[in-house]
């Protein structure tokens, strides 16, 4: 215990910790939300999960020893999302993505300029990937994470990150071939 610490009682952090948190961790809020968005497959759920993860990160911040703050945060986001998904879906069954329940909002002008077709197809194809494929794909393609960072975030060995990413991309490619339908997976379904 540092002398004279006056935590505010909610999370045991003092003003210094809060400022450091704001400078080190909060810049990665977009990354946190994006990962959460793709894991939860629902914007409202993603907002709640991200908020919960940020507050958990704040609580754990005393234990943060420096290093890659983004990977540290995304690890917490991932665990929070998995816990929430596990709660709402204890049987572990996959819920089909329902377009009516998940209307797209907040589209950027750039995104609207793209043929809506391609964007929609991509989005649905990613949403349809199994979670373990979806998370490595999103971390690599949208967040630009290295294999090492993905390994930290997902607690998978580096080699597994590489092979999972390989299978995720192949599955995505196959599902994007017109007329192929989704989920035509071949090969061993290990891991």
């Amino acid at each position, binding site marked *: 215990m*540092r002398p004279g610490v006056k935590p505010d009682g909610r999370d045991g952090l003092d003003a210094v910790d809060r*400022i450091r948190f*704001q400078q080190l961790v909060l810049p990665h*809020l977009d990354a946190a939300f*994006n990962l959460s968005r793709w894991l939860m497959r629902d*914007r409202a759920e993603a907002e709640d999960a991200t908020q919960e993860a940020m507050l958990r990160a704040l609580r754990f911040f005393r234990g943060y020893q420096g290093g890659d703050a983004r990977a540290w945060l995304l690890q917490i986001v991932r665990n929070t999302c998995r816990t929430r998904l596990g709660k709402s879906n204890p049987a572990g069954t996959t819920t089909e993505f329902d377009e009516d329940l998940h209307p797209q909002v907040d589209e950027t002008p750039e995104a609207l300029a793209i043929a809506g077709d*391609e964007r929609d197809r*991509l989005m649905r194809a990613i949403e349809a990937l199994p979670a373990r494929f979806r998370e490595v794909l999103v971390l690599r393609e949208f967040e630009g994470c290295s294999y090492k960072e993905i390994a930290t975030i997902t607690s998978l060995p580096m080699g597994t990150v*590489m092979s999972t*990413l390989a299978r995720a991309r192949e599955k995505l490619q196959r599902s994007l071939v017109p007329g192929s339908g989704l989920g035509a997976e071949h090969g061993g379904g290990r891991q």
Partner: protein
Amino acid sequence: MSCDRVTSTLHGYFDGELDAAGAAEFERHLQSCAHCTSALEATSVLRSSLQRSALRERAPDSLRRRIDAALEAPASPRASVGAATNAWRWLALAASFLLVVLIGWRQFEGLGGSRQASALASSVVDAHLRSLQPGHLVDVVSSDQHTVKPWFDGKITYAPTVRDLATAGFPLLGGRLDVLQGRTVAVVVYARRKHLINVFVWPTRERDSPPSPGSRLGYNWLGWRKGGMEVIAVSDVNAGDLEALHQLLVK
């Protein structure tokens, strides 16, 4: 190589994650494998589509506000007023740390630009950057000047000015000892909105001097001498804020 392994390797190669030997081996394989060549091309097309579709989502403002509100420390009243969350400022801050560390810095116009003053200013900014690392900012954490000031007793032979300026928008965060050019100095730490200000204080025999500002790579500083003390305040807040702090400290 087994089929599975070739597939994994192809993606490792595509992502630039293979070591030099692995990459060279795969390139040799590519020359004789039409299947891998087209698979590599397809992976590249997929990445282009993903980038072009702009599917990465940014955190909505409503979420940002909720988190910002949760983060506001009750210890810093008024901090939230008009201080909308500004991720760019933090990004810029992070970028400027990097720049300062990478490029270094040799000038300190504020104290006359002499070689000695330059080296000193350089040390002060180094110390400021160091203070932002985990566990380095404060040795005594308190917003109470009557806790911080006595903490320096017995550790140094002079008494730095320590004031709780929370009502003026500069809440006191604490103090620490730091080393500048081999000399132990007192550092009093204040907050300004979401920024930190390190105020370095040590005794001097020089005459009083008016505040002398300077800035470089996103950091501002203000140095002055008064009553036998040399003071340098360093921060990423604007020069006006440092001047305001100076006024409050010499009052």
